[in-house]
């Protein structure tokens, strides 16, 4: 039997109304039981504390609270509703430096806009089938950033540089 999404609640955090509508339509098409929408990170934080969600699609550029700030809060705030929340950052920013920044605040998966049915389904499948272990160092808490061989992590071995 295929995945059954009817029992899960997913949050879409996106300020552009049309983009938000598209993401909601895509989630509804696969049968997601409940879709919660928020227009910025502040609204999202409030809503997810009231009703925890199973995963979230989060845009980067939003006002007043952007996506990176929201991800950082989810991973590190003591009153976070779920420090391990699977997060797909959906953004038009694809420059390497931006991808690294998203990864360094604890994004689980990165989905470049424009989205397609195929690419969104692939990222959701990653969350389900290949969840990352979480790593805590003195300066980072979030999904392991070195899971993918030859993946997006290209840089110094910072786990060796951080830590207690």
């Amino acid at each position: 039997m295929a995945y059954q999404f009817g029992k899960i609640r997913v949050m879409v955090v996106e300020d552009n109304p049309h983009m938000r509508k598209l993401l909601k339509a895509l989630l509804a098409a696969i049968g997601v039981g409940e879709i919660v929408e928020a227009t910025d990170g502040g609204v999202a934080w409030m809503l997810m504390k009231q009703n925890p969600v199973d995963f979230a699609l989060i845009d980067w550029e939003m006002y007043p609270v952007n996506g990176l700030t929201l991800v950082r809060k989810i991973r590190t705030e003591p009153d976070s509703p779920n420090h391990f929340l699977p997060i797909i950052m959906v953004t038009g920013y694809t420059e390497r430096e931006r991808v690294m920044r998203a990864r360094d605040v604890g994004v689980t998966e990165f989905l470049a806009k424009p989205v397609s049915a195929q690419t969104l389904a692939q990222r959701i499948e990653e969350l389900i089938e290949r969840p990352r272990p979480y790593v805590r160092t003195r300066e980072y808490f979030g999904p392991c950033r070195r899971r993918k061989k030859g993946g997006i992590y290209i840089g110094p071995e910072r786990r060796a540089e951080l830590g207690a």
Partner: protein
Amino acid sequence: MTQGSAPGGKTFQVVNPPNLLKKKVGNGGFDPNAIKRMDGAIRELKGEFEEQAKAATAELSAATLALLRAPNDQMQRQTVYMIAHELRGQGGSYGYPLITRFGDQLCRYLDAAELLDAKALVVVKAAADAIAVVIANRVSGDGGETGRQLVGMLDQVVAQVKGEG
């Protein structure tokens, strides 16, 4: 939870939280029809996107003209950037990869340019115009000959400006 130490004696912890998502959705992967339904959802929103993109193009043209009049106006520059950023993020979803391409060129150009002099503004205007042509004429896919001409025109403008820089 496991603990380890990296070279230099610094420590880290690794936690493997339970996979609650998989517990809820089960096994078996995506229903083959799910992707078709998602594609159908995108098709249903295409007309709405085209209308919205048309309005966004008008805003982009107005913001670009305002920027031509006041090149140091950071607010106008940000307005141009954000409209192009939203368009590049959506065009490709609806079969308009050239909107994404030209929007991306415009954003990257603005990212790289410190000051907008007259030459730089020629690129901004050319990119905004190319996006407007794509939307007004619904130039989908690679756009055939029209698409090739637009791509060539914008690449040439960028190359000329860089060459003169």
